[in-house]
């Protein structure tokens, strides 16, 4: 019995001793390069990089090490290849300033690539002038937090994505800031991920772009000033709470594009100052509730191929057009939304308007049919026509209406 | 001084002036008479350029008036009923008229003084009686000391005293060699002031001669009767 206890103790101590090894790297130290440190390191070792600049062209991390930067040491890829490639589980990378990956169309060069690994953490890093920022493929249970990536070729098309996930699951992405990339975040086949408190702005194409990424949750993220906004496709079971989509303004821009999305919840989000707040194509069984649509060109564009979607308790204020569509909607329901353009009355004082509201104006239908009529935007005549149509509906789709519009904005 | 040549004017279907050839010279006081609608006022307005003739020409001092406005510096006009901007005061009207003219020396303010208009300078035009308005019109006509005076029913609406003052002024103007053209219905006045009578009948000059000649032709002592005779004659032609 005693020997068992003792041997257990010894094993524990040896483990502890092994873990405690720290390799310090700096220009005056015995170990002067990150690559040299990795060569001598064993699993569970910590590599502490002091402030300075370290060359790192396609440095592969094959051991379960913790790499910590002190004062943001620069890891420079000199635009020759990728900068860091993680190939082992349980790696932690923290506090590094990753710079200058190669860019090109042959390969998705990244600042930090994680390949077929589990439990990897990338935290507190800065990335600058990297083609892709952080690229995870076939990895699980990872954490990407508090990183800030500024894309190469700021503002131009020749740039990759900020955080890129391919065939991953259970990844947590939080508190990151992505700017100047093609897409701020891009997920393909990423499941059961939690994405929260990230800021994606001024990306060339989308702030967030995903497809075939079921069962992910998005919370408290902000997507603003991106080239075309946020586009998500071919996915089910998406949940989006408390996100902000704003200032996506341009000929083909929108806050959020849903294409073939189903069984999803979109709640308490804010859509402000977008050319189109939300545009939906072939998206079914989505619940929109308690969202705020303010100052958009169009708040909603719902194509006729969207079925069984629900819009409840949303607020629509100061939008040029509240809604547009291209035909009759089937089985969609609008209830208890607040529309600032609603002019009905509430005789029984239950705070719900007594007559339904039709958010699609005649003029928005006209524009869909004949785009040149846009020259009459805000014309007095158009105003008169809209009102005439409201009192005697004829052209506007009958199914597109809120049967119980609220008299006052919903508190969200 | 003023000559018209084949002057024609229609208002719609109404043919008012039918080829008028007349001449007025300085030193004359011409009284234009005729029925209502005989074209008196139209002729005056043509001369003043307020109405543009359809055909024919008007010469002022040998120069055609069409396209010209300078000649009106030499004309003082008193309309039958003066219309003035209603919320201006009398004083402002006088000030404005002086302001709008280019040469304002050699002003003749005697009528203005005799009518004591300066005491009413603060009165707005819309508050004036017809008579006072006529006084303003008359004073304005003489104000710039013009060579030609065109007076449309000058004494109508004036009280006898004011009318006398105006008549004296007209006679004085004649004595100073000015041309005075008057339209009037009051024959006694014609007799008092005019030396020449022009009788317009249906847009044409029926009679245009001196008062003396008129009396001689008709054998009447009074101008009034003489004219009545002519009128009857023309009506029976």
């Amino acid at each position, binding site marked *: 019995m005693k020997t068992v206890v003792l041997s257990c103790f010894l094993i524990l101590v040896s483990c502890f001793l092994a873990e405690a090894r720290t390799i310090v790297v700096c220009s005056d130290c015995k170990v002067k390069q990150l690559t040299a440190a990795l060569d001598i390191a064993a699993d569970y070792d910590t590599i502490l990089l002091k402030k300075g600049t370290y060359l790192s062209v396609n440095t592969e991390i094959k051991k379960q090490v913790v790499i910590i930067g002190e004062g943001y040491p620069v890891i420079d890829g000199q635009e020759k290849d990728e900068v860091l490639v993680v190939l082992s589980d349980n790696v932690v990378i923290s506090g590094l300033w990753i710079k200058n990956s190669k860019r090109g169309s042959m390969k998705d060069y990244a600042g930090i690539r994680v390949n077929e690994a589990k439990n990897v953490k990338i935290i507190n890093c800065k990335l600058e002038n990297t083609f892709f920022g952080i690229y995870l493929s076939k990895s699980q249970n990872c954490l990407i937090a508090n990183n800030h990536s500024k894309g190469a070729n700021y503002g131009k098309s020749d740039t990759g994505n900020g955080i890129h996930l391919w065939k991953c699951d259970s990844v947590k992405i939080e508190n990151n800031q992505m700017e100047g990339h093609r897409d701020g975040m891009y997920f393909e086949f990423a499941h059961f991920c939690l994405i929260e408190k990230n800021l994606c702005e001024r990306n060339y194409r989308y702030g967030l772009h995903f497809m075939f990424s079921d069962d992910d949750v998005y919370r408290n993220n902000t997507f603003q000033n991106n080239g075309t906004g946020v586009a998500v496709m071919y996915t089910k079971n998406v949940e989006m709470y408390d996100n902000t989509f704003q200032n996506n303004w341009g*000929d083909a821009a929108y806050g959020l594009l849903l294409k073939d999305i189903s069984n999803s919840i979109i709640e308490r989000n804010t859509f402000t100052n977008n050319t189109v707040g939300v545009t939906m194509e072939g998206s079914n069984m989505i619940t929109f509730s308690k969202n705020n649509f303010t100052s958009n060109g169009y708040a909603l564009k719902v194509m006729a191929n969207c079925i069984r979607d629900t819009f409840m308790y949303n607020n629509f204020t100061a939008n040029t057009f509240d809604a547009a569509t291209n035909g009759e909607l089937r089985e969609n329901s609008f209830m208890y939304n607040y529309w600032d353009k609603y002019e009905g009355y509430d005789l029984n004082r239950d705070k719900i308007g007594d007559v339904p509201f039709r958010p699609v104006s005649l003029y928005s239908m006209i524009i869909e049919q004949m785009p040149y009529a846009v*020259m009459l935007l*805000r014309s007095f005549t158009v105003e008169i026509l809209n009102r005439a149509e409201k009192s005697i509906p004829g052209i506007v789709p009958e199914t597109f209406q809120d049967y119980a519009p609220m008299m006052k904005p919903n508190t969200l | 001084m003023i000559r018209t040549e084949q002057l024609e004017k229609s208002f719609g279907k109404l043919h008012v002036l039918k080829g008028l050839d007349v001449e007025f010279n300085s030193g004359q006081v011409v009284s234009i008479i005729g029925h209502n609608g005989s074209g008196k006022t139209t002729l005056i307005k043509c001369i003043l350029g307020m109405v543009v003739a359809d055909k024919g020409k008007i010469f002022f001092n040998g120069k055609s008036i069409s396209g010209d406005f*300078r000649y009106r510096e030499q004309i003082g006009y008193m309309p039958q009923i003066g219309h003035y901007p209603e919320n201006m005061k009398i004083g402002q009207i006088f000030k404005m008229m002086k302001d709008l003219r280019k040469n304002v020396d050699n002003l003749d303010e005697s009528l203005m003084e005799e009518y004591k208009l300066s005491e009413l300078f603060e009165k707005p035009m819309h508050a004036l009686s017809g008579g006072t308005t006529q006084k303003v019109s008359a004073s304005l006509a003489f104000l710039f000391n013009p060579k030609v005076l065109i007076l449309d029913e000058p004494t109508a609406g004036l009280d006898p005293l004011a009318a006398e003052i105006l008549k004296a002024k007209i006679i004085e103007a004649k004595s100073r060699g000015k041309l005075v053209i008057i339209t009037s219905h009051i024959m006694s006045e014609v007799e008092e002031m005019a030396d020449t009578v022009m009788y317009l009948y249906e847009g044409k000059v029926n009679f245009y001669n001196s008062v003396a000649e008129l009396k001689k032709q008709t054998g009447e002592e009074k101008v009034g009767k003489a004219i009545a005779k002519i009128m009857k004659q023309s009506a029976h032609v």
Partner: protein
Amino acid sequence: MFKIAKYVVYDILRSKVLIAYSLFLLLVSFSLFSMEENSSKSLISLMSVVMIIVPLVSIIFSTTYFYNAYQFIELLVAQPISRSSILLGEFIGVSLSLLTALFAGVGIPILIYSPDATGLVLMISGFALTLSFISLAFFSSVAMRDKAKGIGMSLMLWFYFSVIYDGLVLGILFSFNEYPLEKAVIALASFNPIDLGRIIILMKMDISALMGLTGAVYKQFFGSNFGIIYSLIIMLFWIILPLLFALHIFKKKNL
């Protein structure tokens, strides 16, 4: 000419209509600007008001004024003053008065709340519309001897440019929807000063993004320097042409 304008301004300033107009605009502008935090939204609402009210007030006020000033004009015609001076003097006087009212009612609030390019364009459009509708008012006043007919014609002109014309445009676009209409649409906008003014302002507001692909066509044209100069020249035409017609008639008019 300028002396006449001076007396016209003097006369108009004493009437309370113009002050009421100015105060009304001021009230609308201030309430719109204080209701919205976002000044560009207020500008859009203000634009809608300006596009309806300014032409209406300009044309009706000028027509009424012209008939009321008939006596003054009669008085002037017998004076050694050319008829063009009289009419242009009247035009300048009325214009100065209405522009001042517009500046006080809309210009000052814009300078306070939104002193940017969009505000400036809204002001310029407002000024241009004022001038062109005064010009149209003079045309109908001179063309019609009867006051009621003149005001009726002015109202018709306003109604035509504000409502009927755009309805016709919709009809035309509907009939020829299959054809490429870029140039036709620019031409259509040019034949209505209100449409032209509105489009220039909307372009500055970058609302063109709303307009999709066709919006890009407008933006390309009206947003370019050439487009701006083109618009200004067309606006100028809308001011000068009706006035020239008015002048032509007035020179031969019997008073």
